[in-house]
């Protein structure tokens, strides 16, 4: 079953691996990648806790609207769970 998510549109300072062009955009979970140490903490020498990482697929239309080069082409990106809001049922992240 397709799982849809929306990337949080927050703009925190520091080392962040969620590209700005995808913030606020809706995509589909392409696959779960497992848990990794959070680069937002690793960048400052803290190991911290691991976070779940997902590959999320976005359509060009979703990202660029009417300016999309080809609406059905896609961008897949790796996004950490703490940057995602799940649509529909509650998701334990």
């Amino acid at each position, binding site marked *: 079953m397709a799982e849809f998510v929306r990337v949080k549109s927050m703009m925190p300072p520091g080392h962040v691996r969620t590209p700005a062009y995808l913030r606020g955009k809706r995509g589909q979970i392409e696959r779960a990648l497992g848990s990794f140490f959070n680069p937002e903490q690793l960048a400052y020498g803290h190991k911290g806790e691991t976070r779940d990482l997902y590959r999320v697929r976005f359509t060009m239309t979703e990202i660029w609207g009417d300016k999309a*080069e080809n609406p059905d*082409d*896609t*961008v*897949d990106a790796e996004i950490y769970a703490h940057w995602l809001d799940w649509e529909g049922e509650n998701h334990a992240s």
Partner: protein
Amino acid sequence: MPHDHLSPSGHPFRADNDEPITYWQTMEIAVRELLIEKGHLTAAEVAAQIDAMDARSPANGAAVVARAWVDAPFKARLLDDAAAASREMGFDIGPLKLIAVENTARTHNLIVCTLCSCYPRNLLGLPPDWYKTRAYRSRAVREPRAVLREFGLDLPADMTVRVHDSTADMRYIVLPARPAGTEDLDEAALARLVTRDAMIGTGLPRAPHAA
């Protein structure tokens, strides 16, 4: 315009790098010298590691691609876990986590790292300079088809382009489609058709007669 800035060969003289070293260059030298001074590393070990990285080349990835073209169970393992499949072939790729994405008659894949320069270095060696430019990094997700046309690849509208932005812990390799007319080629000959750009997605494998 005077021509005294040209060498006798007609090329401009390259300026010497006389500018002061940067903060991070100073940091690298300081850390390296401390590690050597305190006996954690030797200068020879540092040089050997640089040699090991320089020895990695797109030929490693090409061998993996060619194996996938001739060995269906290997291809299945590659698409399931590309790092494990590469290690199975004997490549020392360290902690690399690798995903292989397959080009088909309907899908073309393109790899980029919009945030910096993530690249499967442990398998393919260092990325080309253009891969790290702002122009490639920003345009690959904005207008991939226009970028591909500049690389000489004009994709039909009914083919889907999937761009993969290496934003976190994974690295990517494109598994290109096996070119037509290669039925008689063995694995080594097939590997020679696989270019670096074919594995980034900015190109296709060579045609057999052109190799």
